[in-house]
């Protein structure tokens, strides 16, 4: 899956460093890994931050090992490698995401959250939430603000909000300063992968009620 020539909205350096350092919550890592699978620009940037990690590792003062460390390691090697779980073959989504869904787009278990919008929450650690969003052509996600960071990666179709237009492969990084109302483009339904590290802040009363039931 490689749509790099069209991608115009990329990940921030902060997120790429966090991904490389391994300090992001799992849900954010999932959005980053999925975007990197679609965007060679960011993949090269992420790998250059891995090189920084490599240089730091190389410069570490050494820590004494157990006297038999090498022998123990050779004994572990002799046991043979662990068998890796089979990769999800032939999915229409990037590998890291289909591993969380357990298949492709048709395997997603959607739940309606009102106004035609559907979601599917993915199982990650609790520090942040990852969800797939299905926004029918022309429909909108209710007007909301953010307490933390929200990452929205477009997988299919496109949406626009007050800031810009986002198409397949594009990622929107929304912070506390952004209050927006994403609207799916006419003509195509829009499917996104979104991650938030704090509950969204809805402006209207009805979505607030829905929020407490739907973990939005």
């Amino acid at each position: 899956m490689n749509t790099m020539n069209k991608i115009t909205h990329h990940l921030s350096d902060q997120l790429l460093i966090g991904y490389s350092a391994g300090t992001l919550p799992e849900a954010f890592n999932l959005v980053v890994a999925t975007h990197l699978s679609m965007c060679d620009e960011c993949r090269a940037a992420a790998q250059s931050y891995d090189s920084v990690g490599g240089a730091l590792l190389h410069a570490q003062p050494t820590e004494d090992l157990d006297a038999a460390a090498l022998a123990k390691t050779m004994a572990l090697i002799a046991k043979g490698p662990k068998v890796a779980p089979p990769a999800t073959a032939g999915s229409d989504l990037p590998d890291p995401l289909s591993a969380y869904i357990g298949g492709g787009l048709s395997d997603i278990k959607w739940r309606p959250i009102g106004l035609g919008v559907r979601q599917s929450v993915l199982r990650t650690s609790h520090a942040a939430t990852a969800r797939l969003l299905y926004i029918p052509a022309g429909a909108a996600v209710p007007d909301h603000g953010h307490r933390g960071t929200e990452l929205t990666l477009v997988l299919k179709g496109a949406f626009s909000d007050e800031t810009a237009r986002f198409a397949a492969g594009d990622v929107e990084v929304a912070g506390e300063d952004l209050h927006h109302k994403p609207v799916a483009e006419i003509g195509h339904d829009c499917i996104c992968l979104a991650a938030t590290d704090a509950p969204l802040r809805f402006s209207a009363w009805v979505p607030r009620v829905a929020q407490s039931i739907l973990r939005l």
Partner: protein
Amino acid sequence: MTTFDTYNLTLLRSPLRSERDMESVKSSIKQKARKLQTRKSDRSALEWSKDLELIKTNKSEAAFARLFYHFAPRVKAFLIKSGADVGLAEECAQEVMVTVWNKAHLFDPSRASVSTWIFTIARNKNIDALRKQRRPEPEELTWGPEAEPEASDILVMQQESQQLSQAMKALPCQQRELIEKAYFGDLSHGQIAAETGLPLGTIKSRLRLALSKLRQTMK
């Protein structure tokens, strides 16, 4: 043969007769390991990548021992700084080196130095063992069955990596500390400075080029 093979054999195959034998073997290994750490640390990035190549092609235990005594003590230090206790760090450092052996065939010297590759394995081990999370990784990109990286691309990537290491050593203390903090988990992504001042321009465009070459062979 090298000294590595001699004490590999001692450890793996000869039965130890007494506690005292065990102690003297332990201390002689420690001494040898220390010597190796200092002697071998000035090997170049290219030499390390050749050692990894020897594991890939010949299952060379001597090359593995060289990598082990250089990298395992650094991986252990890195894991301790990231919050692991000494026992867990030791265990994880060994497991990281097991992965180095098992996944040697996936190492691509035209896209990373050995330190970078081992760093990514250690980071993932850290997320798995300390933070108890899954680590989603981008889709694997590998050379097609007939294709291989060019020797000149390998050489350049290994040199770039070494230059990056040197450039980082030359950074002002304060800036280096901030970068270390970001990598050892003392900063959240929101606290990481947008402008790191890291000299990454050349290596980034090199990696970008490597990716497009790879894409061409995959078509």
